[in-house]
């Protein structure tokens, strides 16, 4: 039986959250106001590394309106980290690095949380916080990776300054200890490769600490009513928060509910347990009153997570014919004060060398991620790939120039193809969809790559150039994953998905998939999402996994429900299920089979009458072979008088498998491009050199996010490679759009000026200093 139906997948439907957000009806975590609610504020360390010698909180407690103050003396001495949930299969708990206490007697960075003040309102809490007196016993501190690696460096962690990753992944890498690198991988033999090369280049590329600057700072409202601990949280991983709180508060998971329906930006950065959620939970359980703990922007800069500072020394060899013979990368990664089990962005430092340029036979990667007395690093859109691919894409540009080859040609020649095994990281895993060639071809055509050398130059101070970079990033994995559908008594279909809407309209795409499977209208659905009471355990909205992993679960659940509906209708209509079709809110028999139909509402009543529940759950298994690709082409104007770089065009072609809602996909590509422009040209956390470790621009005035005046109209191109492992061919698209932006700009600046920039951000100071260095003595601009 076939019914004419225009698929909803691929349609530019109005996203689910658009109207609630535009009208202010969407409730974000700290929009929740409950009667009798108390307000908490965090007290942060002014010292980069110090032990509390004396502590007096009495003056704060004496402030009228203050309810309580917690310091390390008042909380259990429990270490907690990132992944503390148990997998649904009942496997033993995942063991991860857990290296932060609920509250500590030692501050590990300027801004480290040392106490929390709870009062009737925020101003009172802040007034009181100023009255807490702490005397510090200073400890030796470390601020960069080379210093942390010195044998005489102060030890910041009992296991040493080099972070060694969790045991769970030990099957796929050599786990080190002591002075071993954090990660070490090899394919082939690089020394043999260098010997076979005609040109060998070694360069060091540097990327700065940056902050995701989500529009909504972190925060939560926690309420313990004696039965249930409910926490409305600005998190990407509600189940992870539930797991951690269950452990720390000593409650069964079933007594904790975490809700994070709307999150004002996440970027991977809001996916772990922080102190604030734990403290809010402890405070509401202690007082029995609702507690609101909302980060200020300053809190977000100091108590959030940063993108790590990396120094990539890359050595690569190529033959005159354009065969890459070897790539060796040594990455010194400055991670900050604690890892909380999430040092894996450093693992991704080799994605490009080992996976994207799969055809390079000899690759070595060695990374030293170290602790320092700075705020912690963590996931941030691209999860390590923007950091490393800046260096790799610059290096390949340098190599291509050295042998007089078009970088597009050199790169495509070595690029991964569908069916390749993902070695050395993922033995036994084969990549199933690769749309990079189409990204490059369409992007090149749009920007006019072939005629890039004919770009008109004015002869004045403005120099113009076009640059190219391609990129690769994971586009869907990590279990557990889940979704649930249920036919409600009024005939609506409830779709419950586990992931928050962090701006990517994830639930909206899921509704499109379910509607397509059930051949229903979008209005037939009642949506519930990111509420731990509504679905089974899920990993969270991370790693561009939602569309792929949850999408598979939604389709599976909807298909199961359709089968149930057909089965029930078959019973009552006396028609075999195969002669029935689900469409337009009805289950209908074909004309040959009698043409009768039952509406969803009628079916719901029939099910109720016969004591059946029309409900289904979908789940998905982990795969690591789903990857997204992009090609970025930037055209820049460099003002050699002022050092200003203007990105005048940015063509961003991304392989997203299949676009479920092209409007939303374009939004992801454009937003990522703008973040990439910030990474390339202006963003950097400025740390003081006089009182080392102090962040001098922990505010949106001093932290130079690009404004609308700083970005061009991004030109997104959607490439659909159709991923075979997804029922609709879709992959994730949230992160890939950022990875290649900075190197495309850096390569464009080189094309414009002949000067290579190997350190981000490429500020006027760096541009002018480098141009002066490159210019002949007495030459102008």
């Amino acid at each position: 039986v076939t019914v004419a139906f225009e698929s909803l997948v691929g349609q530019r439907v109005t996203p689910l959250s658009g109207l609630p957000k535009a009208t202010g009806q969407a409730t974000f975590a700290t929009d929740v106001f409950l009667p009798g609610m108390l307000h908490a504020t965090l007290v942060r360390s002014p010292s980069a590394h110090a032990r509390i010698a004396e502590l007096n909180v009495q003056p704060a407690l004496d402030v009228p309106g203050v309810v309580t103050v917690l310091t390390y003396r008042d909380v259990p001495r429990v270490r907690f980290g990132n992944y503390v949930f148990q997998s649904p299969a009942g496997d033993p708990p995942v063991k991860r690095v857990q290296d932060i206490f609920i509250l500590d007697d030692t501050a590990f960075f300027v801004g480290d949380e040392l106490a929390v003040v709870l009062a009737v309102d925020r101003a009172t809490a802040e007034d009181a916080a100023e009255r807490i007196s702490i005397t510090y016993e200073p400890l030796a501190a470390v601020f960069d990776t080379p210093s942390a690696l010195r044998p005489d460096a102060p030890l910041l962690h009992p296991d040493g300054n080099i972070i060694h990753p969790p045991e769970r992944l030990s099957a796929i890498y050599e786990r080190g200890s002591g002075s071993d690198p954090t990660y070490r991988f090899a394919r082939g033999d690089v020394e043999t490769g260098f010997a076979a090369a005609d040109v060998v280049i070694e360069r060091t590329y540097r990327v700065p600490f940056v902050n995701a600057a989500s529009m909504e700072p972190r925060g939560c409202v926690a309420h313990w009513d004696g039965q249930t601990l409910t926490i409305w949280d600005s998190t990407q991983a509600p189940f992870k928060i539930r797991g951690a709180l269950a452990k720390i508060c000593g409650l069964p998971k079933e007594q904790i509910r975490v809700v994070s329906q709307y999150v004002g930006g996440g970027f991977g950065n809001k996916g772990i347990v922080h102190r604030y959620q734990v403290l809010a939970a402890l405070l509401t359980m202690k007082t029995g009153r609702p507690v609101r703990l909302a980060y200020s922007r300053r809190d977000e800069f100091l108590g959030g997570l940063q993108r790590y500072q990396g120094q990539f020394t890359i050595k690569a060899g190529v033959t005159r014919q354009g065969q890459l013979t070897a790539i060796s990368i040594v990455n010194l990664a400055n991670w900050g004060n604690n890892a909380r089990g999430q040092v894996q962005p450093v693992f991704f430092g080799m994605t490009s060398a080992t996976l994207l340029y799969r055809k390079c036979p000899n690759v070595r990667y060695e990374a030293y991620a170290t602790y320092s007395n700075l705020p912690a690093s963590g996931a941030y859109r691209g999860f390590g790939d923007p950091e490393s691919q800046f260096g790799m894409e610059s290096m390949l540009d340098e190599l291509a120039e050295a042998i007089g080859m078009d970088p597009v040609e050199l790169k495509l020649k070595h690029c991964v193809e569908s069916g390749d095994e993902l070695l050395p990281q993922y033995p036994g895993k084969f990549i199933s969809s690769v749309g990079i060639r189409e990204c490059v071809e369409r992007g090149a055509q749009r920007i006019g790559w072939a005629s890039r050398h004919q770009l008109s130059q004015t002869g004045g101070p403005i120099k113009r150039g076009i640059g190219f970079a391609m990129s690769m990033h994971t586009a869907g994995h990590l279990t557990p994953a889940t979704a649930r559908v249920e036919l409600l008594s009024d005939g609506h279909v409830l779709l419950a998905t586990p992931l928050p809407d962090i701006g990517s309209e994830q639930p909206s795409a899921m509704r499109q998939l379910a509607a397509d499977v059930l051949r229903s209208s979008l209005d037939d659905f009642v949506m519930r999402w990111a509420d731990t009471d509504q679905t089974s355990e899920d990993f969270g909205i991370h790693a561009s996994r939602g569309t792929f992993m949850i999408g598979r679960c939604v389709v599976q659940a909807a298909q199961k429900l359709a089968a149930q509906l057909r089965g029930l209708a078959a019973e009552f209509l006396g028609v075999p299920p195969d002669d029935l079709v689900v469409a337009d809110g009805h289950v209908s028999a074909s004309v040959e089979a009698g043409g009768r139909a039952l509406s969803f509402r009628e079916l719901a009543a029939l099910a109720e009458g016969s004591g059946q529940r029309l409900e289904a759950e979908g789940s998905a298994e982990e795969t690591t072979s789903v990857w997204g690709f992009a090609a970025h082409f930037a055209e820049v104007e460099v003002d050699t008088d002022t050092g200003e770089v203007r990105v005048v065009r940015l063509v961003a072609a991304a392989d997203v498998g299949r676009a479920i809602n092209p409007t939303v996909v374009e939004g992801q590509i454009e937003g990522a491009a703008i973040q990439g422009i910030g990474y390339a040209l202006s963003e950097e956390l400025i740390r003081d050199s006089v009182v080392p470790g102090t962040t001098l621009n922990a505010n949106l005035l001093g932290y130079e996010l690009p404004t609308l005046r700083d970005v061009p109209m991004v030109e997104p191109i959607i490439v659909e490679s159709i991923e075979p492992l997804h029922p609709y061919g879709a992959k994730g698209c949230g992160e890939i759009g950022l990875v290649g932006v900075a190197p495309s700009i850096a390569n464009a600046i080189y094309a414009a000026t002949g000067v290579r920039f190997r350190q981000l951000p490429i500020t006027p100071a760096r541009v002018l200093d480098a141009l002066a260095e490159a210019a002949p003595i007495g030459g102008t601009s």
Partner: protein
Amino acid sequence: VQSFEMLNPRTVEEAVGFLASYGPDARVYAGGQDLLYRFKRRLATNPMYLVNIKDIAGLRGLEPRDGALAIGPLTTLGELERSALVRDVLPMLHAAVAEIASPQIRNLGTVGGNLLQDVWCWYLLEDYDCWLNGGSYCYAATGEHQNYHSVMGGKHCIAAHPSDLAPALVALDATLRLASPSGVRTIPAESLWPGFTWAGDKLRNHTAASDELLVEVVVPLPSANVRSIFLKQRLRNSWDFALASLAMAIEMEDRRCVAARVVLGGVGTAPVRATAVEAALVGAELTDEVVARAAQQAIVGARPLRLSHYKLKIMEGLCRKALARLREEGDVCSENDSATETASMSRS
């Protein structure tokens, strides 16, 4: 927000009375764009009393008067920016205002607040015990001075003067009227900003006394043969302070520059008159050679620090760019003039 006491005078006399009696413990409150952020940061230097002048009549608005434009200090930057009059008769002032901060801040921030704002040194905002915060050390001098600090030296504090309006007003030779309990004095705008000076035990970046209130800004309207330009270079193109800015007004006669006022912003603790540039221009035609030589004079007297040598190149670059544009504008104007002449002749 830290607590403070708000005083609400209805007249200038009442306001300066409050300022006189509370002295350095009080500050004028108008648009709040400078003060409120500092209150939210709970800085040690914050005043205990705010003298709210928003309810005083007669301090807001624009008035053409005797070949000049009088601007009330309560006029918002947005009002100034949107004034067709300002755009027509003082295009350089319009250009400068339009580059201040962000549209939101311009809608609330006032002319007086922009001229008398505190510095935005990130050490001060982090409450370091620097010269401005009761200490006797400038952290920026040895630390992170790459963007927002002086390259022209400074006394104790080296934070750059943050106003975009100030260099424009100095280039336009504006005058300021300041009221105090003892009356009103009129001073050239330039003299309000000599750099940092001590007022009692406090270091200040302007010379208005603690009992003085700015009551009027008077900008003379330039003659028809004056060409002017404002350029601002920053790390991003909205909501940012100048790495360097340039306000330039030159008077031309028969292709020759007969007078010039060139002022640099963002590079000194006060707006800096680039007198060497002015000298190189006066009496000269704007040939390529003169433009290049004059631009090189922009850095005369500069004392850049470890991380800020690049700002000198921007100063020179802005100067070169400004002169090139003014020359182009002149060419266009003279072409237009001759075209107009031809047209009117043919009509008659």
